[in-house]
């Protein structure tokens, strides 16, 4: 250990001796680490698990309501289900928890607050949604299963909407006017920002990698699925329709897919049972003549569903490749400069070897010096990462407000900088430790 202190001392002296060369190496490492950690942090935040510890129990059942012929069996079920299939599966209550999902945009006013009307994004769902996805509440709570049945006109609102309409005060019990009906607020969410917004994530495979919008904020209003259909007769936003719906068709019979279902299944046996259940359901519906492709059912887990939709935008992936190529070039640069630095000291190394230092000792000393450069470079890299993230936060992308450097990535910055510099120092240090003794002493 005392030797380590001595090496550190030697390294510091050596770094101070040629400030220009030292600065070049530190800048190379800092810039390389800054670029790659910025993109890596974005990747880390965008590709994470939105429900850590629970996502493996969450599944997304799918049946294929398409009546179109599919001779080669290439059609994947659409990203949502038709109203009938989704509500049938939900009503069976065969999972531990189950939540329907429908989306709409409705005109909203708060009658007792003097504010202009706005268009609110409304999520229609069922009571299991909140416990299943561990949604945090600030005031009040969610509605109960009987509210789903009795079509109660209640709503849960987001923290953002509560601040906008009520200045952040406890608004439980107040009334909102949605389209032409009154609903009572029974709960206000604490700030909740899942990344991505996984529960109504659809259409990734049709988006050409432009998936930044998967990271936008959750809806502002959450309502019971049943009562929201009473209020909004136009129905939910359709993912697609297999033919144009007749004007005036109610959404319960429309030829569109606009409802999704999430289920929670606690163990492998339940998962197998539920898979069998949806297959049976599809077969039975085919016998009834309602479905055409009975064998085309799927049930990806939450993370499989995110993978299938390729949630990380392709631009972000491209930037990560670029940043690592950049880091590689910076490292080549550092290898060259370190080599120059160590070999220039051949005379000094020769003297140390002649005085009894082993090759290992010379190697260690050189590596300590490389590591020290890495540490200083890592500090610069950390500052540049903060700068890089601040720059991306200025971009008009949906995930901008999600970006921050968490403790994992903070540590990773320094670990990566030191590892990179040790790697870069390996060849030069090895070369330095092989310096031919006699030759160097002769030239002194």
């Amino acid at each position: 250990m005392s030797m380590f202190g001595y090496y550190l001392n030697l390294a510091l002296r050596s770094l101070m001796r040629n400030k220009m060369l030292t600065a070049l190496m530190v800048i190379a490492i800092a810039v390389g680490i800054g670029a790659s950690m910025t993109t890596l942090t974005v990747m880390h935040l965008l590709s994470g698990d939105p429900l850590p510890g629970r996502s493996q129990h969450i599944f997304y059942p799918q049946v294929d309501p398409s009546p179109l012929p599919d001779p080669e069996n290439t059609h994947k079920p659409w990203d949502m289900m038709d109203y009938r299939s989704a509500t049938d599966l939900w009503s069976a209550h065969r999972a531990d928890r189950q939540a329907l999902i429908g989306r709409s945009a409705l005109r909203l006013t708060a009658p007792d607050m003097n504010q202009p009307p706005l268009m609110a994004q409304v999520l229609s769902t069922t009571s299991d949604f909140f416990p299943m996805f561990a949604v945090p509440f600030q005031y009040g709570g969610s509605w109960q299963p009987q509210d789903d049945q009795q079509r109660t006109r209640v709503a849960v609102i987001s923290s953002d909407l509560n601040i906008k309409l009520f200045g952040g005060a406890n608004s439980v019990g107040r009334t909102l006017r949605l389209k032409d009906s009154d609903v009572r607020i029974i709960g206000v969410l604490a700030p909740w920002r899942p990344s991505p917004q996984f529960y109504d994530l659809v259409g990734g495979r049709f988006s050409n990698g432009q998936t930044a919008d998967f990271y936008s904020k959750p809806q502002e209003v959450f309502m019971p699925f049943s009562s929201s259909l009473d209020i909004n007769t136009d129905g939910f936003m359709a993912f697609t329709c297999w033919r144009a719906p007749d004007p005036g068709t109610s959404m319960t019979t429309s030829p569109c897919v606009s409802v999704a279902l999430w289920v929670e299944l606690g163990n492998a046996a339940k998962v197998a049972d539920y898979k069998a259940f949806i297959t049976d359901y599809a077969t039975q519906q085919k016998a009834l003549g309602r479905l055409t492709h009975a064998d085309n059912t799927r049930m990806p887990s939450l993370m499989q569903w995110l993978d299938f939709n390729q949630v990380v935008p392709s631009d972000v992936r491209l930037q990560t490749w670029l940043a690592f190529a950049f880091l590689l070039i910076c490292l080549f640069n550092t290898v060259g400069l370190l080599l120059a630095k160590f070999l220039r000291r051949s005379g000094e190394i020769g003297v140390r070897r002649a005085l009894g230092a082993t090759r290992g000792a010379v190697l260690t000393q050189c590596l300590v010096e490389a590591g020290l450069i890495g540490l200083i470079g890592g500090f610069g890299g950390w500052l540049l990462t903060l700068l890089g993230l601040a720059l991306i936060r200025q971009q008009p992308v949906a995930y901008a407000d999600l970006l921050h450097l968490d403790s994992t990535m903070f540590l990773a910055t320094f670990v990566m900088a030191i590892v990179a510099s040790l790697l870069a120092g390996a060849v030069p240090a090895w070369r330095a430790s092989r310096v031919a003794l006699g030759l160097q002493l002769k030239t002194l």
Partner: protein
Amino acid sequence: MDILPILSTLRRHKITAWLLILEIALTCAIVCNAVFLISQRLERMNLPSGIAEHELVQVQLANIGNRSDAEARAKTDLAALRQIPGVTQVALVFQMPFTDGGSSNSGIKLDPQQQEDTVDVTQYMGENLLSTLGTRLVAGRDFRPDEFVDLDAAVTALHSGNLKGLPQVLVITQMLAERLWPGQSALGKQIYLGQGLPFRVVGVVAHLARPNRLSKGVEYSTVWPISMNVAQGASFLIRCAPQERERVLKSALAALKQLDPNRVVLQKRTYDEARHAFFANDRAMTGILVGVCLALLIVTALGIVGLASFWVAQRRRTIGVRRALGATRANILQYFQTENFLLATIGIVIGMALAFGINLFLMQHYELPRLPAIYFPVGAIALWVIGQLAVLGPALRAAAVPPVVATRSV
């Protein structure tokens, strides 16, 4: 200049020489591809829309109230907007070129018996659309007022199979006409939709880009004589002189609010703003790529400076000996310049192969076209120049070594 002594020196510094070569190769490969990506994005951002971009403003309202009076409401709204001084044209349209959000698209066929669609086209609708957008008609005519059908009526007719209730004609872009009937006039030709429903081409416009899904063919657009209202998702498109846009937008909002103060405005912007927003991602990515290219070139240049300085310092005595034996300053300068040129050339050759490989990878994963051949000579020249500039300083220092160094400390 004799290359052999340089090669024999480099052979004694294999590691350092290879490091420099690899650094140049990687830089060359990445910069070539990055510049290509930049050019692709720039090309995308500069795509022509075919419309009078600087003369348009858009106002979109949310649908409030029942559907039945939507048509009457549309008429009143349009009339009020036409009253605003400076407004030359007004239309209710569903989509505009280069905007995100919904777009109406459909496959069309050239033969009613065909199984597969020939191309995927976008469908523009709305009364008075062509003159409001300001597209240039190159053949045929615009729609006559009696050819228009309301969207709901058209959908009903489509389902009941009543051909009379559907529009009979359409206008297409020149690009689409050339794709469907190469070298022929498109006027009077038939296209088929869905289960073989026929429609006749009556007009061809010079350019009209799609709203999105650009990969399906940027200008594969069709225009239909279908009228729309706010309840069906249409927004107001107002045309006026460029310098009047701000004022007209304000007056339009005031006029619409006056007709019904309860309406929610979803969107109010000039077309230029809409287009700017659509390409925001490409602009950001271009900025990042330019930054990376510059940083790479600077880092590589610094690397060359560092190594060249090291070599000069290491060979100080050799240089002194050469000078003492009669080599001129120019000889020494040339020596280091030639050495750098050799290393850069090997690096560039490897780099080009690498650039080609990276391009193949990008072609597979990011739907990019092949790297044009022009990038190879341009990239090579750029790296040669950077190499020569970077080595100039250390080489001048080497040339300045006096011959007397040779006599010291032997």
